[in-house]
């Protein structure tokens, strides 16, 4: 068993990366992201120990893969590197032993993913575009002008929760439950170094399963009554041969719902916040954007690279694998640090600069590579594109007026608050 992870939320100072012996450098410390001091740690690993083994950490022994091309190699080789049983660095407590396709290998992964991926098929995305634009517009039009507010709460969370509710066919007035359940699922201390109370989490997972069971039965009854099917996820699951009786496999039912809620929540939410933050850190880029709105699609890719809202994915070696002279043993945990690969100077020119007109901006790691590549990537890009198109219609400047605060986690790279003030056009 691993050592218990401390739950203290006080800001504890941690040493600078260059003062730590290389063989003790632990990038799983969730305070690196919380205190926004991760870049120096990962740069050190990229430069000095790109295939790095740490025999002991609160999350057990693990290998860190930190360069772009090495991450791509691991991510693309599902036969050498299994996604089972879980894709975050820490092992899961018993009550989180859910079955989700992101943490399955073929062929089961393929069956389950196929059942849901049509929710993000082109025809569905086209149907959603107008709705997203309308919702973005009404959120932006409701923002206070000339006073300081938290962008995370008023825009990032609000927009993401509305979109998730739409995708799931979940009652809009209950949308904040989706965010709450997602936060509970990702903040498990022993899995990601987050902070949450086990009992509260257990209750939240129970509520989530119950509410979605009700919705499942309600949808089934509506269809039995001859009501036309929607395009939402529950309908898709019910229409697919492999998943039509998913409800009878509760761990898989809840697991895949949680997966899709988390997949659409932290990612989009933190990219929405990260874009505003980055444009304020790089004012010349904001000027480029003001002068040329056609840069928005390229900027969206750059925002996603810059933010990399999910910091890592974990694999387990299925046989001994040699990488740059290091032997990763069968059964070893291998962590691909996407946030580091996306700052790898070997592949990305001026990787520490946020450049909205960057060439090859699409060639980033944030969606992962291989069979587990993000399913919602096009939806995410569409949401961000529409958001920035509508922002630029309305506002001259979303000014960041104070220090942001960040999520404590080694998995979710995100903001808890971002104080801003809006300057209209």
């Amino acid at each position, binding site marked *: 068993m691993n050592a218990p992870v401390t739950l203290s939320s006080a800001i504890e100072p941690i040493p600078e990366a260059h003062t730590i012996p290389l063989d003790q450098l632990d990038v799983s410390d969730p305070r690196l992201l919380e205190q926004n001091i991760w870049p120096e740690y990962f740069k050190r690993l990229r430069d000095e120990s790109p295939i790095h083994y740490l025999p002991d950490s609160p999350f057990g022994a693990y290998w860190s893969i930190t360069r772009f091309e090495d991450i791509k190699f691991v991510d693309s080789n599902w036969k050498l590197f299994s996604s089972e049983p879980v894709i975050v660095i820490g092992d899961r407590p018993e009550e989180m032993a859910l079955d989700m396709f992101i943490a399955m290998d073929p062929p089961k992964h393929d069956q389950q993913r196929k059942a849901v991926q049509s929710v993000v098929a082109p025809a569905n995305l086209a149907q959603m575009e107008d709705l997203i634009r309308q919702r973005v517009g009404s959120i932006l039009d409701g923002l206070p002008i000339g006073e300081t507010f938290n962008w995370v709460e008023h825009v990032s969370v609000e927009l993401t929760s509305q979109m998730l509710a739409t995708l799931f066919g979940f009652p809009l007035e209950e949308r904040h439950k989706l965010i709450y359940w997602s936060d509970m699922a990702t903040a498990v201390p022993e899995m990601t170094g987050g902070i949450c109370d086990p009992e509260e989490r257990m209750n939240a997972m129970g509520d989530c399963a119950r509410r979605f069971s009700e919705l499942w039965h309600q949808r089934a009854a509506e269809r039995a009554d001859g009501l036309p099917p929607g395009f939402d996820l529950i309908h898709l699951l019910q229409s697919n041969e492999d998943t039509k009786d998913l409800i009878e496999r509760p761990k898989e039912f809840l697991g895949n719902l949680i997966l899709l809620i988390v997949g659409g929540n932290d990612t989009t939410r933190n990219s929405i916040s990260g874009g505003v933050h980055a444009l304020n850190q790089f004012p010349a880029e904001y000027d480029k954007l003001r002068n040329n709105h056609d840069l928005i699609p390229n900027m969206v890719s750059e925002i996603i690279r810059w933010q990399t809202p999910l910091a890592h994915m974990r694999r387990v070696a299925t046989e001994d694998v040699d990488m740059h002279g290091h032997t990763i043993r069968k059964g070893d945990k291998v962590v691909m640090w996407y946030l580091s690969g996306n700052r790898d100077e070997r592949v990305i020119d001026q990787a520490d600069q946020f450049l909205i007109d960057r060439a090859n901006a699409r060639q980033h790691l944030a969606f992962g*590579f291989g*069979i587990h*590549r993000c399913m919602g990537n096009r939806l995410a890009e569409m949401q961000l594109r529409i958001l920035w198109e509508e922002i630029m219609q309305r506002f001259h400047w979303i000014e960041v007026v104070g220090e942001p605060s960040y999520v404590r986690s080694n998995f979710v790279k995100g903001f808890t608050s971002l104080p801003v003030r809006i300057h209209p056009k």
Partner: protein
Amino acid sequence: MPQITFIEFSDISHCVEAETGKSLMQAAVDNGIPGIDADCGGSCACGTCHVIIDEAWRARLPEPEEDEVAMIDMNPEPQPGSRLSCQLCVTEDLNGLVVRLPEFQM
């Protein structure tokens, strides 16, 4: 050099001379064909260089490897003739090849 025709989803057609030994994806990128994203740079890891091979040509191309099949399988709208252009090598035998681009890269 073999001539290859790329037809966009909107039916706009581009006939290009492709360099042998490079991938079909590279031929598209080198010639500025819109609609090929190639997010992973050509290593069969993202699925965003998806093309649909004209029926007459399907049997004349080498069978896809397992990795390519797996990536195409992840596309919500695979079609008969769907291939990843990064996995097809341009040879003289491909002179006259016609491929269509999907509505979106996924």
